[in-house]
């Protein structure tokens, strides 16, 4: 399964990068989201995959059974998802304002101030 996910992660990264290179702010943001999915899955896969044994200590035990999933990667991803959302929201609203200001979705139109 790890191999399959590795390929999937590669595709998500590739698609994200490709979209970010487009001349469209909308696609740039789409790419950002795909990239975030890729990164989350990467952490998840790199931490080791365990099927259907969540990192929750069963009621009759005092420590986590050895076969459980790694709680640390999950905590990291959880954090990353929420942060990713706030970044996305910021990017979207920034785009919103840029569009109101410049009337364009093309990042090349914005490079006046960058020199």
């Amino acid at each position, binding site marked *: *399964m*790890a*191999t*399959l*996910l*590795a*390929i*999937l*992660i*590669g*595709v998500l990264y*590739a*698609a994200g*990068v*490709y979209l*970010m*290179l*487009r*001349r469209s702010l909308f696609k*740039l943001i789409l790419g950002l*989201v*795909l990239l975030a999915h*890729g990164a*989350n899955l*990467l952490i*998840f*896969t*790199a931490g080791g995959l365990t*099927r*259907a044994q969540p*990192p929750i*200590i069963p009621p009759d035990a005092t420590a*986590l059974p050895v076969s*459980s*999933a790694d*709680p*640390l990667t*999950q*905590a990291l*991803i959880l*954090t990353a*998802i*929420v942060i990713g*959302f*706030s970044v996305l*929201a910021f990017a979207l*609203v920034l*785009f*919103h*304002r*840029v569009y*109101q*200001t410049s009337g364009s979705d*093309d*990042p*090349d139109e*914005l*490079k006046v*101030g*960058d020199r």
Partner: protein
Amino acid sequence: MAVGMLTAILSGFVLAILAPGLNRMVRGGAGWLLALLPLGLAISFASHAPLIASGNVFSESNPWVPALGVDLSFRLDGLSMLLSLLITGVGALILVYAGGYLAGHPQLGRLYAFLLMFMGSMLGLVLADNILLLFVFWELTSISSYLLIGFDHERAAARSAALQALLVTAGGGLALMAGLLLLGQAGGSLELSTLLLQADYLHSHPLYLPSLVLILIGAFTKSAQFPFHFWLPSAMEAPTPVSAYLHSATMVKAGIYLLARLSPALGGTDAWFLSVTTVGGVTMLLGAWLALTQSDLKRILAYSTVSALGTLTLLLGLGGTLAVQAAMAFLVGHALYKGALFLVAGTLDHQTGSRDVDRLSGLFRAMPITALAAGIAALSMAGIAPLFGFLSKELSYEAALRAPAAAWITAAAVTANILLAAAAFIVGIRPFVGKAVPTPKPAREAPPSLWLGSVVLASLGAVMGLWPALGTDGLLSAAGTAVLGETVSIHLSLWHGLTLALALSAVTLIGGVIVYVSRGLLRRLASRWESLGQFGPARWYELVLLGLNGLAGGQTRLLQSGYLRYYLMIVLVATVGLAGATLATRGHLVKPTDWSGLHFYDVGLVVLILMATMGTVLARTRLAAIAALGVVGYSVALVFVLFGAPDVAMTQFLIETLTVILFVLVFYHLPETPALSSSLARGRDAVIAATVGVLMTAFVLIATVVQYQPPISEYFAEHGLPDAHGRNLVNVILVDFRGLDTLGEITVLAAAGIGVYALLKLRVGKQRGTASAARRSELAGGVDDASLPIANPMRKEGDVP
């Protein structure tokens, strides 16, 4: 010590903070008041001088960064004592002088603060026993020097001189840091007291030569040795008290101090002897010559200081008892007479409005006290008995005569001293004798604050010359002991008998008078060679600076094209290139063999995500793309469900919902935009994207197989319930084990939320004008520029209402 050394150093910094306020409260007299601290410190140091002179060494240590072996360790021996007395004693006089010199200046408080900050740093530099601590103080003196040279920061000349001094000395400081670290590595300790004991071991260490070269660069830049000497004359842009204090008596001696301090560990080798004596000798001659070609009092003094620093370097390069004795005596003598002369130059400038030697004459009648101090200091500088300058020059001649290549070194020393004697007459005697000429300001005797410093320093030079046994012997012996690493005892006396050195002194004096008389001729001669100056090191500095700016500009134009996707491409290609190269050379490429435990629904799910991803990329309308993106998100959440991550899955589901809502809210009303890239660009981007994807796949495959460190999750698994009372370990990690991270995270969340709110809500200019005007101004980036810097660059000319 009764007062800890750390306390002594910190007191300077503390008073620096208080100084501006104090200056406002005590109008006029703050200098006298502030001088009490350095005076008190000087007395405190002096009270320990007899103990030091009899061979004691004080040390104290407080842990600072024990993990790096850096402690706040200080050590007071003869050498540190000598310099500490100079720093605090001269410091007290300078504070008084500054109060008179810049009386009524609106920024006087700041000057006091910088001077005190410098004093603290310089004290730290000479007292530090840990070489990294020494380095910290070394850099602090460079910074305070920068601030002080640029004190009159509204003049461009002052600013560029300050920057020049900073770039040269701080650049040397970087070399010094590297050198000190190498030295520490070679010697296995960062404490000077340990390093100084292992000279033989260090000399044979392979790191000896690199560390020596780097440390010498540091010392030479700081002490204005050729070819780094040019910053010191430029630094004369500073107010005169600063020049007297930093750029003659103390800070420029830091390099000398370092050479002296490290000479037991680093000295005594051919490399040391050759490099230090050569640089010192060249600097000595060059400085003395250039001093004579100037007409500005301060610049004459600056170049003569360069020459004196060269002499000190030369003597330390020679090594041996006699040379070190001479160096220590000269160090003190020079600080006394040069400090006095600088103060005189400042007083003349202040009282007459000019410091051009050609326009000052016959001032003895108007300013007798200043004239007297100037005369004594000048005679001491010229090396006339019975002043202290005579003693130190006598000693240096003795040292030169016994040195290897004695003829050359002696000839150089005599030549330099002849030129310096003439310079001394020009600065200290010439303005006061002869016929009085009108000056820009009618000359009047200076107030006490302006003559006290020069009088004290000049008379100290006279007293110590007449009665050398007056404590000086013991102190100089202790300093010499510290430099040589073996006990020496120095006895200065005015009369050595009819020696060769005495004959040389006589030659120097006669030569000095001859040069003084024929100075006009020399100046004309020099002016012919002036064009040579454009090939000098000052020009190199300019060229390097220009080149650096050009390079920065060029690479900015190259890398900052203004096109977002090129930025991205640079980042991506660099990442893929570097990471790919590492993988190819050092990575063990893993064959994709782990197809185990695959269920049909896994495959189905992954295929679904792949298709949705493709859909997102290829979608023709925005809504379709958003829908496809939503499918990707929900499916990824399902992956989390399948592999035992219910918390993550739940969060992902919820976030995905909100993401789609956000996308729709923002994009629903916007018109579709056409695809802009050419098919060529798309092909290129596809190649880049595919490479990134392949690299990431390779990374994941490696990451799932290779494990460098044991996972730390086992700790959480064991301690979750007993210590944190929670069974859901993901949550326990988030709110307890790694709670601080989460606190940081929600702070970021809050920042993003407020940022979004600001982007959407803040409308400057909403209040004025009609509704439509407000609307237009909002469209034109009417968001408050301070809260949203990015809005400004986006503003286009046509949009501004």
